[in-house]
């Protein structure tokens, strides 16, 4: 079967898988950004309880495998009374995993904001919350965007694992096609190319564009 015939027959299935992958990516990215901000700020907190929670979260999720976390959240968490359906368990696991790496990026970027900015905000007697929101975070955001670009590609790759708990994403559909047709090169090859296009021609340019927009808004372009 030529590649063209293959795409004609299985194109719709691959397209529906790609759609699920994109939805999983967006939801997981939202979870990752929120959790990374919370943990990154939490690790700088003066309250030892909050700091401890942030450190434990970061170390546990960075120290174990995404696949193990995914299985744990999907198969073990229900025993504690928290049942997530496979779709939710998928993007929550990927988001929590990537968020632990993102937390370090957030923390690093906040620390990299020049000391004079902190002192100036202090001199203007801004409250700590206001100082963070109005002065520090906007500048940290510009610093953290490039590493987030790389992390989002890791996140996209991570979403391929949700197929293993039967979320019908691109990876899942590809395996189904492979199992029913044995056209492995066409099926897996097409999926590899789709992931590559998503990463290289959608995520990367969007992040570059965001970097430019943010830099301009801070008057640095």
């Amino acid at each position, binding site marked *: 079967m030529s590649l063209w015939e293959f795409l004609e027959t299985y194109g719709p299935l691959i397209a529906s898988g790609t759609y699920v992958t994109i939805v999983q990516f967006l939801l997981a990215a939202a979870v990752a950004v929120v959790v990374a901000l919370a943990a990154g700020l939490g690790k700088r907190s003066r309250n030892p309880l909050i700091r401890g929670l942030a450190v434990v979260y970061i*170390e*546990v999720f960075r*120290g*174990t*495998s*995404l*696949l*193990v*976390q995914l*299985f*744990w959240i999907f*198969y*073990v968490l229900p*025993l*504690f*009374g928290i049942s997530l359906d496979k779709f939710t368990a998928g993007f929550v696991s990927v988001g929590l995993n990537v968020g632990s790496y993102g937390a370090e990026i957030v923390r690093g970027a906040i620390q990299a904001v020049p000391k004079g900015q902190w002192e100036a905000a202090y001199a203007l007697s801004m409250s700590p919350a206001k100082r963070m929101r109005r002065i520090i975070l906007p500048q940290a955001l510009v610093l953290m965007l490039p590493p987030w670009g790389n992390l989002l*590609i890791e996140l*996209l*790759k*991570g979403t*391929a*694992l949700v*197929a*293993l708990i039967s979320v019908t994403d691109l*990876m899942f559909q*590809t*395996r189904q096609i*492979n199992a029913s047709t*044995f*056209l*492995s*090169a066409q099926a*897996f*090859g097409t*999926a*590899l190319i789709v*992931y*590559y296009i998503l*990463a*290289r021609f959608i995520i990367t340019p969007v992040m570059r564009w965001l970097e430019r927009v943010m830099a301009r808004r801070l008057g640095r372009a």
Partner: protein
Amino acid sequence: MRFEWDWDFTLEILPRLLVATGNTLLAAGTGYAIAVVLGLVFALAQRTPWRVLTVVVREIVEFIRSTPLVLQIFFVFYVGPQFGIRLSPWTAGMIAIGLHYSAYLSEVYRGGIESVPKGQWEACRALNMSTRDTYVRIVIPQALPPSIAGMGNYLVGIFKDTPMLSVIGVAELLHTANAIGSENYRFLEPYTLVGVIFLAISLPAAGFVRLFEARVRRKLGL
């Protein structure tokens, strides 16, 4: 009371999981050995005077880095037989994971080589050193210390990615935990233990990498 932790069951399955931990470490070590060598090939291939080779290798590295490892594992495992090449799960897994991480390591090496000051190259040129001597005696020794942190991180990274090999049936930790879980209809202990074993290895390993880096830096007087 399905969520009650069963210590007897834990002790019963622990030996099996520890054997599987050995397999996981073996897989990580083998994959890493492939990646260290192949990564250097990728990095050096991007520094040759032949433009075409440089561009092609660059694209291959980008492609490998932006596509999921699980998919690459499936690809290597299933596409071979279609063309008459049968690979065992272990071989296919090692090729896939080694290739994946060699793309990452080539970037680490590239950064290291680029961090060597230009004057060093010029000095080698002035001393009439061969290209081989320039790399082996001058550039690589200086490119190594800044690469150690990255290399160490990817060593821990490859270890954490080995569970993906379970999808093609390599009997590593997660595969064994799956088997134990479905034999006994208990997933709490096996999956939790796998998580604990991963933490118990990767946290000290990450600390050790940091210590090792500091030591190399001190030894080289940096």
